[in-house]
């Protein structure tokens, strides 16, 4: 099947990509360089993390910042005005050089949307080389909304009722226990696996081997999920330098390519209980749809491949139990089969389909506008064969999955 940039789901694809099919029939762009600032709690401005990651990506690509024609930033909502205009903030910090600029905000999918905006420029022929940067400095503890009495904001309402992010994660975890016989040990085993994966990752915040007993011995947060199974919030930065395939060919013969970026919205009636909503859509008049499965479906269609072609996946383990859900939404196994795959060792590095070889959010904690780009960085290293001790052998195709508030999510497919 011939994949185009817009694909069969054109109506839900991001604006700006509509001319892509004529400009570059393959719909692909090259990843020339990637870079990250290590995740942690560093107490510095998000701008520094972003610039460090950007400089590393430029160096990795061997491209001068002066030659970048488009800079695209993932916005952060917790760092004041510079965060709202992150694209320009990074451009100024790197040194104004006249590039065109964009900032994207899509909650946890902000990095992917910033990437999609850059890809659209390249596929439409308006730019040859673009830099995408996301970085964040985060507060401690639960992410919480602004105060006052604001019932028109669903995020305010759910916190007023005591419904935090871990509540949503736990509802899905309990559902797996009831439907598929998942156990607390399974959820702990995901964390143990990811902790082992992240041990050698220099960008990971948590690099400590864990046992199932240690995970199950940590404090209960939202039953059945414990402190060590729920991802923290972190500081961090990630950057990706992309170009047209022509531009890449002039520099290297082996650039990893982006074959798909999906940033679809849900379809009414959305059947899933999603943050920050207090209720799902009603399916009384029209049939219910699974938003999460539709994110990956569009990515596969755009890339012209299927789950069987995937060598490894980086998925959003906001809680360890969610990794199991994502394995199924990505079609790596059928509904209710993820626990079996986990127990068989298939999702470990060295297994048939490694999941979160980077260590995942379990080892990073979430730096919202950087996280989707960090997934792309990891897949790039894996597909290049330069991931060191956590290398997945002969990795050819990688897929990411990510999910954010207010109907956002993304999936990116890379191939070598």
């Amino acid at each position, binding site marked *: 099947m011939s994949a185009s940039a817009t694909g069969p789901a054109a109506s839900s694809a991001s604006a700006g990509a509509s001319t892509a099919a004529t400009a570059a029939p393959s719909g692909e762009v090259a990843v020339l360089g990637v870079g990250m600032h290590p995740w942690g709690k560093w107490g510095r401005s998000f701008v520094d993390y972003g610039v460090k990651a950007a400089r590393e990506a430029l160096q990795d690509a061997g491209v001068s910042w002066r030659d970048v024609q488009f800079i695209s930033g993932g916005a952060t909502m917790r760092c004041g005005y510079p965060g709202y205009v992150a694209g320009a903030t990074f451009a100024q910090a790197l040194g104004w050089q006249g590039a065109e600029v964009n900032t994207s905000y899509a909650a946890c999918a902000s990095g992917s949307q910033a990437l999609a905006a850059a890809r659209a420029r390249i596929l439409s022929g308006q730019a040859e080389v673009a830099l995408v940067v996301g970085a964040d400095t985060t507060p401690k*503890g*639960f992410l*919480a*909304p602004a*105060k*006052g*009495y604001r*019932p*028109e904001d*669903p995020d*305010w*309402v*759910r*916190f*007023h*009722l*005591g*419904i*935090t992010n*871990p*509540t949503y994660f*736990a*509802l*899905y*975890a*309990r*559902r797996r226990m*009831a*439907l598929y016989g998942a156990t607390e040990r399974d959820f702990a085993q995901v964390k143990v696996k990811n902790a082992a994966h992240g041990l050698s990752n220099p960008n990971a915040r948590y690099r400590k081997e864990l046992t199932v007993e240690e995970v199950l011995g940590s*404090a*209960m*947060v*939202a*039953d*059945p*999920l414990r402190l060590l199974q729920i991802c923290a919030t972190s500081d961090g930065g990630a950057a990706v330098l992309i170009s047209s395939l022509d531009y890449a060919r002039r520099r290297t013969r082996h650039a990893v390519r982006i074959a798909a970026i999906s940033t679809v919205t849900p379809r*009414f*009636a959305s059947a899933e*209980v999603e943050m920050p909503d*207090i*209720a*799902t*859509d*009603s*399916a*009384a*008049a*029209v049939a*219910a749809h699974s938003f999460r499965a539709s994110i990956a479906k569009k990515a596969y269609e755009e890339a012209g491949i299927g789950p069987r072609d995937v060598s490894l996946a980086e998925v959003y383990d906001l809680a360890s139990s969610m990794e199991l859900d994502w394995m199924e939404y990505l079609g790596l196994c059928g509904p209710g089969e993820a626990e079996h795959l986990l127990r068989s060792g298939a999702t470990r590095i060295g297994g048939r389909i490694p999941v979160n070889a980077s260590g995942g959010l379990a080892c990073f904690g979430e730096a919202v506008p950087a996280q989707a780009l960090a997934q792309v960085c990891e897949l790039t290293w894996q597909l290049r064969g330069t991931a060191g001790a956590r290398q997945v052998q002969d990795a050819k195709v990688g897929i990411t999955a990510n999910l954010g508030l207010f109907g956002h999510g993304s999936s990116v497919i890379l191939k070598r």
Partner: protein
Amino acid sequence: MTRPRAAAIEGWYTLDEAAPALIGSRCTACGTYFFPPLQSVFCRNPECAGERFERVPLSRTGRIWSFTDACYQPPEPYVAAQPFVPFAIAAVELDAEKMIVLGQVVSGLGVKDLRVGMQVELVLETLYADAQVDKVVWKWKPAGGVP
């Protein structure tokens, strides 16, 4: 002496002591329900051009889709008692409306008392108390008592 009661979130549920109910919007064109009640006048079903809604009480009973305990004190705007008392939360499927609605479970119950598929009914209970009034909210209560 009973203290006066008021809704913690105004306009989302009736304060009928015997049979309280969530208040939803129902599109008069396509029949889709919305909760919380729509502030907009435009139907969110993409196939529907409806612009007229009626306020309707939603089903007072449903089945538990999933549930959890909140073991850590949530941040503001949650108003926590001191010391914090853990509570349970349930996501409940309403049959007629074909939707899932989240809410706290009545106080005193936890995950050990709940099951996926369990029938629950909607009641009013205090969310928090200020100096003058008890602020009440909808909560889910096992319909057949606790097993």
